[in-house]
């Protein structure tokens, strides 16, 4: 079973929910939590686990071999991203624009643009008892998150069996990184907050999930007297609200120092229990 925790808006509590839920569920299930917000991976700050693996992740980019090049111009024409440019008697490669499609490299008649590895980020794996954690962080200056998210997904697929409950902490937004992070999930929890910003961004996230044909439900964080804003919308759209995490300064304070919340705030644990019941009863996690 793969569940993703996502949201349109940043800062709604995806990481709070992901880390606490993963810890809570790992008391009964074998769990792997994966942080796919590779631009700003935060889950690890809230877990205290032992690192067992670190590996560099690479993307492939072309490298110009001047001696072999006849300046025929095919490479420049073959690149839709303007990542390979012919300037006078030079071929310039812009790695941050390259999507690793291999067209320039394989269409070059002289083999003057072999693909070489470029580091795009670092993947780390951590483990304690029944809780596994995987995160990747994008190198600063690398602009594309999607290839690293793909690699991270592959790593988790290859290293954890079907019996392991997989939880994915997704990046914010509605564009390509979110699609990459949620497209393989069996179920998506959309985290929102009862404000006009929260509602607006939830609507965008809902559209995204419908576009992807995903099963999803909503978790309201910082739930307060304004909850009607979200519940009216969810009712009208027939979307299930699975949990309501209360708005408490205590939770914000515990979060600020990276502490576990559910063991100290009983109201929070109650909501995690609702999510667990939902996973067991509705999604048949066992």
């Amino acid at each position: 079973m793969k569940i993703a925790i996502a949201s349109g808006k940043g800062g709604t509590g995806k990481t709070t929910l992901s880390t606490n839920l993963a810890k809570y569920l790992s008391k009964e299930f074998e769990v792997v939590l994966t942080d796919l917000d590779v631009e700003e991976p935060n889950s690890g700050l809230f877990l205290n686990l032992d690192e067992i693996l670190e590996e560099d992740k690479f993307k492939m980019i072309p490298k110009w071999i001047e001696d072999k090049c006849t300046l025929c111009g095919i490479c420049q024409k073959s690149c839709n991203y303007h990542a390979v440019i012919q300037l006078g008697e030079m071929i310039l490669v812009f790695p941050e624009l390259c999507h690793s499609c291999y067209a320039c490299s394989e269409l070059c008649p002289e083999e003057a643009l072999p693909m070489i590895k470029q580091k795009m980020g670092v993947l780390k794996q951590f483990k304690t008892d029944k809780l596994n954690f995987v995160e990747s962080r994008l190198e600063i200056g690398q602009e594309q998150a999607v290839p690293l998210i793909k690699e991270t997904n592959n790593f988790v697929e290859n290293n954890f069996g079907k019996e392991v409950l997989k939880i994915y902490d997704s990046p914010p937004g509605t564009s390509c990184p979110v699609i990459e992070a949620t497209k393989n999930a069996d179920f998506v929890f959309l985290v929102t907050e009862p404000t006009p910003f929260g509602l607006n961004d939830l609507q965008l996230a809902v559209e995204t999930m419908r576009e992807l044909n995903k099963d999803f439900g909503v978790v309201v964080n910082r739930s307060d007297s304004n909850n009607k804003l979200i519940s009216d919308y969810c009712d009208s759209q027939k979307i299930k609200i699975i949990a309501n995490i209360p708005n408490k300064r205590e939770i914000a304070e515990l979060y600020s120092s990276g502490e576990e919340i559910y063991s100290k705030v009983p109201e929070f644990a109650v909501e995690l229990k609702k999510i667990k019941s939902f996973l067991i009863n509705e999604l048949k996690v066992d």
Partner: protein
Amino acid sequence: MKEIVVISGKGGTGKTSITASLAYLGGKDLVLADCDVDAADMHLLMQPEKIKSEDFYSGLLAKIDPELCTNCGICANVCRFNAIPVINNQHIIKPLDCEGCGYCEKVCPEKAIIMEEQNVGFWQISNTRINNKLVHARLGIGAENSGKLVAKVKNEAKQLAKTDNKKYVLIDGSPGVGCSVVSSLSGANYVLLVTEPTVSGIHDLRRVYTLVKKFSIKAGCIINKYDLNYAKTQEIIDYLQEENIEHIASLPYDEIFIKAIHSGKTIVEYDKEYFYEKLKECWNRILELIEN
């Protein structure tokens, strides 16, 4: 004309609330740009009245003509994105996986593949209720190239500032450190970092500032919710000193942020006293810093 970008790395630090307040204080001296095109919220506080709107086309998507296709499979072989599966004995393009590289188009012996430009959203210029113009956008679902739409919004805002003779462009940036943030930062004169004293707030501040340094842009920082965790606030202040980032202000954790959003107002309109004075000082200080 000077360009001020507000970013935070982490979402939910109060970046949009603070940017909207600065836009209110700057009033008719500035053009406002919402570059958080993935989850744009600025318009909710500005009651925008549309002046102009345009579709945004960017990036390509492959399309196979089944009449011409002989299902030779050459396209699927070269595709590095596994975007060309065979369904019912016909090669088809999976739009969400296609990256638009066009390699398939170039190798198809039947010329059965064409590349089509994608409508990935729209951008718009509006009058706001606070006497300035707002350039904002909406990215289509799952669209690529959010960086390019950000660049478009920014360039339109700059153009507008020039023709209307405005002194500043104020930009609400996007979260993260990827392509849309890079687009938000390029060409900026000043970066305002909004952070919060949490483990993740500090972590993300450090990462995003590492990116800012690559652009050599002068930066200042507002610590929001400073009273949530005094030790972490001190940690941020120490970091700012170390990096020579001006600590512009600290703001308390206050329900006013939420109340203002609910009433569709900026914080400085909602609270005419403490927050108005505090943010007015911030705005004046930022103007001093960019003029020198």
